[in-house]
C-alpha cells in the first residue's frame, strides 16, 4: 500500500515532488542501513539489503548555519580537538553542521572510490543533502561517498584503502 500511496501521491503532485515524497519515504525505510565498526575508520554505515543504483539512501541532517559561522565553528572545534569536522557545504552561503546535532549520516566514511554520492536537492525551497547509491550496493557493504574536501596544506590521511586512493582527504 506504500507503493499505491506513492503512485496516487505522485500522480496528484506531479513528478517534481518525487524527491519530496521519496525523502519522506526515507524515514520509513531506515532499516536499509546499520551502524557498525568500519574497516576504513572507527565506525561507519553498512547496507542491510541490496540497494539498486541511484537509490536515495539517507539525508545528511544537521544544523543549517551560514558560511562564516561555519568557519568560526571549524576553528573552535579544532581548538577543542573535536575530530574531523562534520560540516557539509550546501552552497556558497550555507553549511550543514552535524557535529553536535543531526543524524547518523555523519558517520558515513569517505572513499576515493565510493559506492554513493551526495546530491543537494531543493525541496519546498529548502536545500537538503541526500546520499544516493552510485552503483548496486550488496548487503553488508560499507556505504561511502567522496567528501570532496577542499585542498588544504595540513593534510588528513585517507584510510579508504581503495586502489585509486588519493592518499589524503583534503
Amino acid at each position, binding site marked *: 500500500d506504500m507503493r499505491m500511496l506513492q503512485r496516487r501521491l505522485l500522480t496528484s503532485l506531479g513528478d517534481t515532488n518525487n524527491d519530496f515524497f521519496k525523502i519522506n519515504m526515507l524515514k520509513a525505510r531506515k532499516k536499509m542501513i546499520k551502524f557498525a565498526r568500519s574497516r576504513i575508520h572507527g565506525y561507519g554505515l553498512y547496507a542491510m539489503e541490496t540497494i539498486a543504483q541511484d537509490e536515495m539512501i539517507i539525508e545528511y541532517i544537521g544544523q543549517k548555519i*551560514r558560511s*562564516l559561522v561555519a568557519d568560526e565553528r571549524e576553528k573552535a572545534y579544532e581548538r577543542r580537538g573535536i575530530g574531523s569536522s562534520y560540516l557539509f557545504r550546501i552552497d556558497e552561503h550555507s553549511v550543514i553542521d552535524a557535529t553536535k546535532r543531526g543524524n547518523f549520516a555523519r558517520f558515513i566514511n569517505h572513499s576515493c572510490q565510493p559506492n554513493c554520492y551526495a546530491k543537494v536537492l531543493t525541496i519546498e525551497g529548502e536545500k537538503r543533502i541526500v546520499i544516493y547509491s552510485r552503483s548496486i550496493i550488496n548487503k553488508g557493504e560499507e556505504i561511502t561517498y567522496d567528501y570532496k574536501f577542499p585542498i588544504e596544506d595540513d593534510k588528513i590521511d585517507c584510510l579508504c584503502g581503495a586502489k585509486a586512493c588519493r592518499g589524503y582527504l583534503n
Partner: protein
Amino acid sequence: TVKVSSNDRAFQLTVSGQTITGMEGYAMARASHGVAKGTWYFEVNFDEQPDESQIRIGWSQSHAALQACVGYSKFSYGWRSKHGTKFHEAKGKKYHFGGFKQGDVLGCLIHLPVDA
C-alpha cells in the same frame, strides 16, 4: 549623492530608499561612496528595533565580509547598540556606556591622515 549601495550589501538585507532592514543574523550594507583621506562624518536615524534586537554601525573597507557584522575583522570598526561597545577584529572594548536604541540619531566620524 551618497546612498546605501545597491550591490555592496548582503543579499538578505532589504534596502528601500535610504532605509536598510535586516533580520536574524548580522549582515552588512555599505554606502555607495567611500573616503580615502581627511575627516568625514555621517549620520543615521535608528528608526526601530524589535525587542532583544541589536544593531552595529561604523566604518568598513570594501574587503570586509558582508555576511558578518562591522568590526568583525581588521577591515572595519563597529559600534554596537547593546552597551555601546566598540568592535575591531571581533574584539569588543568599553566605549560609550549605556549604548543606543531606536529613536536615536547616530553619528560616525572617521579621521584619516591626509598625507599618508
